C-alpha cells in the first residue's frame, strides 16, 4: 500500500479513555494519522421538549472537523456541512440498537466527535471513538461496536484505507461489526464495486474489526483495573 503496509495490515492504533474531566465519558483515538476526540454526555435531561421520547433515550450525535485537520487548506467547516451530517446520522443509526435506551426514558445521550487530524477513514474512527467514550461513561450497551474500512484495487483486497488511497478512486466499504455476536450494524459504500468482490472485501473488513476490538478491549480492561485498584476503600 501507499504507506508501506501489507494489504491486510491495519494502521497503528493508539487509544486512551477518559481524557476529558468535564464529560461523563470521553476517549481519544488515533488510527494512523487520523486523530479523533469523542465526548459523551448523558443520560441527562433533554434540552428541547420536542426531542423527548417517552419510553427511550434520545441519542444526539454531532461531528465537527477541526479547521486545522486537513493538510492543504485551513478551512472552517460548519457543523451543518452535508457530509458531516450524513456521517453523524450513520453513527446515530449504528448506535441506536446497541445502546440500551429503554432504560432511560425521557433523557438524552449526547455524543460529540471532533476530528483533529484527517487522513481518511472518518466514519470508522468516529464509531470506534464513540464506542470507547460510551463505555467510559458507563452507558449500558449490548457490546462493543468496531468499524473498519476495506477496499479493492486490481484484484487485491486492501484493509484500512487512508486518505491517499481513498482519493485514488479505490472503492471503499466501511463495515461496523459487533465482535462477539458477529452481527453487522453498518455497511456503507460510496463508490462502485463488482458484486463478486463484495464478499472478500466484507470478510477482510470484518477481520479488521475483530482486531480493532482486541486493542480497544485491552485498553478498557487495563483502565478499569487501574481505577478499581485506586478507588478500593479501606
Amino acid at each position, binding site marked *: 500500500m501507499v504507506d508501506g503496509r501489507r494489504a491486510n495490515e491495519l494502521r497503528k492504533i493508539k487509544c486512551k479513555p477518559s481524557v476529558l474531566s468535564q464529560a461523563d465519558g470521553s476517549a481519544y483515538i488515533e488510527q494512523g494519522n487520523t486523530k479523533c476526540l469523542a465526548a459523551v454526555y448523558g443520560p441527562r435531561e433533554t434540552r428541547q421538549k420536542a426531542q423527548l421520547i417517552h419510553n427511550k433515550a434520545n441519542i444526539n450525535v454531532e461531528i465537527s472537523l477541526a479547521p486545522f485537520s486537513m493538510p492543504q487548506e485551513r478551512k472552517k467547516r460548519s457543523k451543518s456541512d452535508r457530509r458531516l451530517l450524513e456521517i453523524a446520522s450513520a453513527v446515530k443509526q449504528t448506535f441506536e440498537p446497541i445502546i440500551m435506551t429503554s432504560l432511560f426514558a425521557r433523557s438524552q445521550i449526547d455524543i460529540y466527535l471532533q476530528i483533529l487530524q484527517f487522513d481518511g477513514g472518518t466514519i470508522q474512527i468516529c464509531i470506534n471513538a464513540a464506542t470507547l467514550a460510551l463505555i467510559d461513561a*458507563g452507558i*449500558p*450497551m*449490548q457490546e462493543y461496536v468496531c468499524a473498519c474500512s476495506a477496499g479493492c484495487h486490481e484484484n487485491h483486497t486492501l484493509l484500512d484505507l487512508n486518505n491517499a488511497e481513498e482519493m485514488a478512486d479505490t472503492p471503499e466499504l466501511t463495515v461496523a461489526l459487533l465482535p462477539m455476536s458477529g452481527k453487522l450494524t453498518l455497511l456503507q459504500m460510496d463508490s462502485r464495486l463488482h458484486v463478486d468482490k463484495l464478499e472478500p472485501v466484507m470478510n477482510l473488513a470484518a477481520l479488521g474489526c475483530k482486531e480493532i476490538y482486541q486493542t480497544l478491549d485491552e485498553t478498557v*480492561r487495563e483502565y478499569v483495573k487501574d481505577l*478499581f485498584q485506586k*478507588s478500593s476503600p479501606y
Partner: protein
Amino acid sequence: MSIHFLFPKPAFSAGNNDQKDQDGDVDMFVRAQRDNFESKVVTPGQVITADTQYMRGHGTYLNEEESSHISSVAGVVERVNKLITVRPLHTRYTGNIGDLVIGRITEVTNKRWKVDINSRQDAVLLLSAINLPGGVQRRKTEADELQMRKFFAEGDLLAAEFQGSFNDGSTSLHTRNLKYGKLRNGSLIVVPPALVQRCKTHFHTLSCGVDVTLGLNGYIWVSKHSSKNLDELDPEAIYSNDNEPVDRSTRETIARVCNCINALSRHFMCITDTIIAYAYEASLKYPVKDLLKLEAMEFVTTEVRHKLSVVRSIY
C-alpha cells in the same frame, strides 16, 4: 462378629483447594471462586457466566438464547447470593430513597421546581414538599403558588432528601426537615458520585472550622461553620438569599478544603470526612493556589494513602 467403625464422609465432595482453618470450617467463598467470576473485570459483550441459576442485576442482560449472562458495561462483577450486578466506573447518580442530595434549581413551573442533581433526569421538588416559612406545619395557599420564586429561584442551591421515583424514572425530593433547605456561605465542588460513600450522617464539621455537606450525588458543599442550633433558626429567614459576612481566613480554609477534595477526586479516592481531614493536614505544606498543580495533588494523595494504610495496619 467384628465391629467396623465407619467414619463420617466429608460434608460435600469439595475440590482439592479447600482450605480448612483451625476450627475445621471451610470458606464458602471458595465455591464462588470456583465459579470464577467474583470481582472479575468485565467489558460490554463479555459473558459473565453461563449458569442460568443466577438473577441478573444492573449492568447485565441475557443473550437471545437465554443461555448466558452478558455484561453491558465495563466494570467489576459483584455477587450477592444469587444476584449478579456489574458496577461501572463513572455513572450518573441513581438515587436511593433517603439519600441526601444537593441540587441546583433549573426551572420554576406550576407548583413544582425542577432540580439538577447530576442524575439522568432533573428531579422534581413539589411545593407541598418544602417547609413553608411561618411555622413548620402550614397549609399552602394560593399566594404561595404565585410566589414560588420567593422560596427558590433559578440557580439556587439546596440540600434535600430523596423521596422516591415516579414511573417514568423521574425522581422527587423533599426538604421537610430543618437540616435541609437553601445553602449559603460556601462553595460547591463536583466529584464523581461513586466516590461518596453512604454513612450515618452527611453533615460534617471539620476541625479546621468549616462545615462539609456530602451529597451522595457527587455535589459537595463546603461552607462556613454555622454554630446556630436548629431550634433557634428564624423560620422566616430560611429562604433568605443573603450570605453572612465571611472573613478572609475562613474563605482560605474553604478554598483549601475544596482543592483537597478536587485532588482526591482526580485520583479517584473515596471521600469521607476522615479522608478530607487527612488531606487537609497534608495540604498545609502548600499555599492554597498551588494545590491545583499536579505535584501538590500527588503529594497530598500519597500522604493520605500512607495514613490510611497505617490506620488499617493497626486493626
